[in-house]
């Protein structure tokens, strides 16, 4: 059974409907890419999963319906969502942001180990931990958001455009860390990306959204090489 399942999910803002029946699934430990043009509904799909937008249809996580669950409750079930714009709390310090990642955890020893681990991934965060998060560069903020999400020890990681606005080298290193975390912890990842090339490299499966519907789905390796798919949906 899949870890996350969406079936016929429709959602929107006020009168404007954005999703017109999205069905997809993410298996335990899978990396799944969610691709598509601007406005196709990628971000809205993630927001529906964590209860940030009203939706109809079926969303199940670990076999449980998310129908009536609040955002806080969904997060407590094991979903870490790094939203568009990263959701870094810029009024707080780097360290306080990280402490909030471990807010729900009661295993002090495990948390200490995870701090060492994320500081291993992102040494710059250890250096800057006493500074206000607002002083970080875009890439560093993305690292902070990812580190904070890892401290939550999620079963599923939702990443919304982690490459947005970052230098190619930084994007590379962030994606390598996502891959490392996925391999060592079996954390499932649902990755929303504009940068289809790098997303298809990292993921095993991919869905392409077009105007609120899944237009194409399949193995990432297959999609990557399909000339027609590349040209019409992925733009490279």
């Amino acid at each position: 059974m899949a870890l996350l399942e969406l079936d016929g999910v429709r959602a929107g803002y006020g009168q404007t409907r954005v999703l017109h029946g999205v069905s997809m699934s993410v298996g335990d430990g899978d990396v799944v890419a969610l691709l598509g043009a601007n406005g196709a509904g990628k971000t809205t799909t993630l927001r529906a999963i964590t209860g940030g937008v009203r939706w109809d249809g079926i969303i199940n996580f670990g076999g449980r319906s998310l129908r009536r669950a609040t955002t806080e409750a969904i997060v407590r079930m094991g979903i870490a969502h790094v939203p568009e714009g990263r959701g870094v709390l810029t009024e707080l310090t780097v360290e306080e942001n990280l402490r909030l990642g471990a807010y729900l955890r009661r295993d002090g020893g495990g948390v200490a180990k995870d701090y060492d681990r994320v500081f291993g991934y992102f040494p710059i965060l250890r250096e800057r931990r006493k500074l206000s998060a607002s002083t970080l560069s875009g890439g560093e903020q993305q690292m902070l958001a990812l580190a904070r999400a890892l401290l939550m020890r999620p079963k599923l990681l939702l990443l919304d455009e982690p490459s947005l606005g970052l230098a190619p080298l930084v994007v590379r290193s962030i994606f390598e860390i996502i891959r490392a975390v996925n391999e060592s912890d079996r954390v499932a990842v649902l990755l929303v990306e504009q940068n289809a090339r790098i997303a298809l490299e990292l993921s095993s499966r991919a869905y392409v959204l077009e105007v609120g519907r899944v237009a194409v789905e399949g193995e990432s390796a297959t999609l990557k090489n399909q000339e027609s798919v590349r040209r019409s949906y992925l733009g490279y």
Partner: protein
Amino acid sequence: MRDDAAARAPRPQRRKDHRGPGTLMQEFLQQVLSGIASGGIYASLALALVLIYNAMGLVNFAQGEMAMFATFLAFTLIGRGMDYWIALPLTIAIAFVGGIVIQRVVIRPVERAPVLTLVIVTLGLATLINGLAGFFFGYLPRLFPSPFSVQTIDIFGAAASWQDLGVIAVSGVVLVLVFLMLQRTTVGLAMRAAAHNPEASRLLGIRVSWMLALGWGLASAVGAVSGIMVAPILYLEPNMMQTVIIYAFAAAVLGGIESPLGAVIGGLIVGVTVNLAGTYLPGVGGDLQLAVAFAIIIAVLVLKPNGLIGRRAARRV
């Protein structure tokens, strides 16, 4: 019209010819000290205003009335024979719970309403609490007991009253406790996160709505301290806090309305400034001191709208 804290401080005679420079200095120190005492009271109420401003993007116009009501509870407890030092923490605890209840029952249903709705709701709350206090306790001004003696003690030649020192000590302890809670505890951290960025906080599993309620509880508790501290200086009656809240507004605006530390610094500056103005500026005794507070509010809004510690435009929609 009743006097306020600063106005009832010892009033100097303007007979400078009989004094040496030493006495002038002592008098100045004395006025500064009693200004700090009033400042501690304003700081507590200003901190309450800031805590709620951060939680809902709006000051709570009922803050002063909530403090007044809590002070009546303390008055009742003490009147029934309870020791002052038991009644004080007990009242603070009741005020804390009361603040949470008010947020859950009155504010939460209109949480997402336009700002104007919230303004009306808190104004209505102020009127309601004021009326309830009048109904239960009457409008007769009452003498509130003070645990501190009216005797003075010599500090660097200035005669400091135990009353002023006691107020400074109690406000100081309460303010430090609130700061430790906000800055050093996990729940304080979650409260700050929830106030600054509710969306991102929810995604971290923080129960934002409860954190906002906790903010109301904390504000109500700190406000209660200001009421209990000011009551022995003024007289206790339902309109007691209506001048104090103006000074607290001035303090909060001066500190940048979003900054708890700014509110405390603002409170002390307002307390000392108003007291010194009342002493040394001819014509600014008694009621005109309130004008000094308004002057501070207007000056800050015109010259430095973000206040002393404000980080960005004090606007949130």
